[in-house]
């Protein structure tokens, strides 16, 4: 019994001792392997200084001191534990561009306002992107226009979408303005261009369409507009279903609208953007039918 106790004590003691000597060794190595380098790091204010130095700091491994006028950081680190590259990466991840790494966009975006330095390198890279996107967009746009000509109901649908989008944003003024456009579009439809079946439906729904669109145009109260939009949507559905739209139309339903009675709308995109609640419940609903 006793011998076991002694043995255990000895064991504990020896492990303790060895860990102490180990630590001493590490310190010695640290003294020998320290390197100091000066690096340029983007930043603008004293908040940046704090951010950069915190990012570079690791106890007994690395530390940095950044000067906001010269933008030069003096980085001291243990070469056996880390590298200048690893430290610069950490600094970039905290939002500060440097000679080796550019910060991720969202890390930069999260910096305090005073700290949003001018991103010289990064800016140049971004310039090109929107233009290429734009070109791409314009190509598809012209394509779309070509199709529009073939579909006499297209202007009505486009105007309807504009009303819907205004309601998604809960913007009564825009909805009213778009609805006036819709009234015009309805009046402008050339009935002789409609197919026989479509023509028949058009005659049935035209009055309702006009009535509801006009009411939305007359008011700036979003809730009132939404009431009419619900009926308008049902009529539009009848109309569009009879036609063959040139692009898919998504018939969508929110069971909660109109105090649980549910309401429908048409959309040009499959994703749900609910016009009956706006931002409050933007994603409530589902596509019940795709009209192609």
């Amino acid at each position, binding site marked *: *019994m006793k011998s*076991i*106790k002694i043995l*255990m004590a000895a*064991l*504990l003691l020896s492990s303790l001792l060895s860990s102490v000597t180990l630590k001493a060794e590490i310190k010695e190595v640290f003294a020998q392997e320290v390197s100091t380098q000066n690096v340029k790091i983007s930043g603008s204010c004293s908040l940046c200084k704090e951010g950069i130095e915190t990012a570079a700091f690791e106890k007994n491994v690395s530390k940095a001191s950044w000067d906001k006028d010269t933008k030069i950081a003096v980085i001291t680190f243990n070469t056996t534990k880390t590298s200048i590259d690893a430290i610069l*990466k950490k600094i*970039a*991840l905290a939002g500060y561009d440097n*000679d*080796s*790494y*550019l*910060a*991720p*966009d*969202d*890390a930069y975006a999260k910096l305090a306002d005073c700290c949003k330095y001018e991103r010289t*390198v*990064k800016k*140049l*890279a*971004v*310039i*090109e*992107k929107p233009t*290429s996107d734009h070109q791409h967009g314009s190509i598809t746009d012209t394509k779309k226009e070509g199709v529009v000509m073939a579909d006499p109901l297209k202007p009505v649908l486009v105007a309807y979408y504009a009303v819907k989008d205004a309601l998604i944003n809960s913007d009564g003024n825009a909805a009213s303005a778009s609805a006036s456009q819709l009234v015009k579009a309805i009046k402008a439809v050339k009935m002789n261009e409609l197919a026989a079946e479509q023509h028949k439906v058009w005659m049935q729904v035209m009055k309702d369409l006009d009535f509801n669109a006009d009411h939305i145009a007359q008011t700036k109260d979003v809730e009132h507009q939404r009431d009419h939009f619900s009926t308008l949507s049902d009529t539009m559905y009848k109309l569009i279903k009879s036609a063959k739209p040139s692009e898919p139309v*998504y018939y969508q339903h*929110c*069971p*909660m609208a109109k105090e*649980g009675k549910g309401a429908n709308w048409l959309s040009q995109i*499959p*994703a*749900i953007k609910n016009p009956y609640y706006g931002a*409050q*419940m933007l*994603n*409530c*609903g*589902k*596509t019940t039918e*795709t009209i192609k």
Partner: protein
Amino acid sequence: MDFYKIPYLKVILTILILFLFSDLLYAQKIVRYDLYVKDTTVNFTGKPKRAIAVNGQIPMPTLTFTEGDTAEIYVHNELDEETSLHWHGLFLPNQYDGVPNLTQMPIKAHTTHLYRFAIIQSGTHWYHSHTQLQEQLGMYGAMILNKKEEPLIPTVPIVLSEWTDIKPENVHRMLHNASDWFAIKKGTTQSYSEAIKQGYFKTKVTNEFKRMTAMDVSDVYYNQFLINGKNESQFSQFKPGDKVRLRISNAGASTYFWLTYAGGKMVVVASDGNDVEPVEVDRLIIAVSETYDVIVTIPQVAPGSQPISFEFLATSEDRTRSASIFLGEGIKQLAAPLPKLKYFEGMKMMNGMMKMSGDLDDMGMNMSLNQMDMNLVMYPEITGPLKGKNEKGRKLEKVDKQDKITGQEKTTDRESMKMDDKNNTAESEHADHNKYNSNALSSITTLNYAMLRSVKSTALPQDAPVKELRFVLTGNMNRYVWSMDNKVVSESDKILIAKGEVVRMILYNNSMMRHPMHLHGHDFRLLNGQGEKAPMKNIIDIMPMETDTLEFAASESGDWFFHCHILYHMMSGMGRIFSYKNSPSNPEIPNPRLAQRKLFADDRKFHFMAENDIATNGNDGEAMLQNTRWSIGSEWRLGYNEHHGYEVETHVGRYIGKMQWLMPFIGFDWRYRKMGIDEVESNLFGQVNTKDKRSILSVGVNYTLPMLVIAQAEIFTDGILRLQLERMDIPVSKRFRMNLMVNTDKEYMAALKYIFIKNAGITAHYDSDMGFGLGLTLNY
């Protein structure tokens, strides 16, 4: 007339022969590879460790073929153990599929084996060892099958993998023994003190009440993640404006990777080697063993300015670490790292889904195709950072609000949701669903299976007979048992299918982990709402509570494995074997019965664990051997004198039921103790025993109660009954664990253990027999 005929014929003949010959030449182009499999030492973490290299490299060399080639691959096994190679995603004769003991006998040490098959498809595939856990040690590589005419775009094979310094066999053993060392290393213990600190105490209690241990998205802690064998590398040959096609295969043994790119959107053009219509995404998760072809663009820089290289980042699903490559040259534009997971939010979500029976309840959400990701409650980039820190907190609030509203509406709407046609799921976006739909909740587009659309029709013959099979993926995290319909490979029969049939599988995941299910030798159609353009795949990742339907044309012969591709799940027996009726016998399997026995040995394997506490008041510990159903365990308490006594209790039990909460056992109890004369002990039932010298048999039963308390009732052959309650390993803090025990023999015990390394800790405990003690705990 005759005069003319002869040369005419001759010409035709020569032309014919030439044609035939050239055709033969073309079709019979043989591409030979010699692969030398050999032990090696690697150093990914600063410590030299054993690994397996092929031709001296990890990953194994990239094998490139063109559709129409014949592959001749000589595998020279220079290991001192068996091996095999499986050609993942390839259509080939069954005998070359490379599953040891199923389609061939293992390649014995120091022998050579030839795989020879025609390449009849194209796409990004990969290959790996199918023997034991060798894949974890480096036996994986890319296999690129080119079309006869590939589009002219620079292509880079990308092989994702992971490395652990712990031997894979040990990893497997630790998983089976519910070691929480990996959780400690990952910082995901989810202990009570952490729960309290973050305001989730109730969540943690509910979680344990429902008999769950800490939740995580992956099982194993890895020291390093690798892309083509390196943590970081640069492809400086690419110029601004270049488009590059990355042919990515996830060769990780158990890691899913999030893929993101610092240079803008990525365009997904193929999955599992099959082309899909291009889809633009911000990120995608690649399941274990899946492949994706992704086109990235290196953004232009303004003329005269500094060049920039852009990071392509692969982050493990648990977000502990990542690996990256930089495309282009110059200053490195980093991709945003993925923020740490909010584990307690995940736990809360799990609590909501878990019924007391251990089954999962999807609350009528009809989840499938990765569209609803329950895990997103843990993703700060989608659902906002950990509780109200900055401006993003508002977003979280919005989600909460939506949550409440949907709560009211749920009852009225459940019916309408049931009406959803299964094929319609891609379109049926609903608020209830949207709670977990990351594409609806954020501006980040995440790829899901519903977005994959094949470039050509994949419809199967209409008139073929359909064989419909339903499987429930089942599992038990605590005991690390993974199965299908609660049966492992060795417990189930082969599934017989007939050539010419269409096999349709409906898979439901009732376990708490996601599973990448892989079918050998066939591609299946994933019914994802794209109609006849359903994508072809050979891997389907199924998240908890998801149901997915897939179908394939049974066109081969022989035995084909269908299994979870998480290496440790597969080795635990999560799979089935599809066997074609009336197949010719496989020349590579001379003795089918022996092969089957060896195959079944994998999931029948017993795992050993032991723990011993050398304390000031005595020496106590336990050792256990466990497999899928059986447990043989022994506990001992050895005092340092006769007065404290010596005691060994051994139990042999079998776990019953899917959740394995019930375990009847037979036991043997041996004690020796010297007490004062006439001193006896009585239990709560008034039964008297000296316990001085006892050697006795027993029967009993263990049952896991809520809060993970194990209730034990045991009756000994001398008529003595003992009831006991025990709770082991209560996670008090990150490294502190508490044990509590009390029984009707008026014995009780409380212990507090501090884990300081993988195999050792310090324990303070109080025991009614032996008093207070402090000791060193060693465990294996």
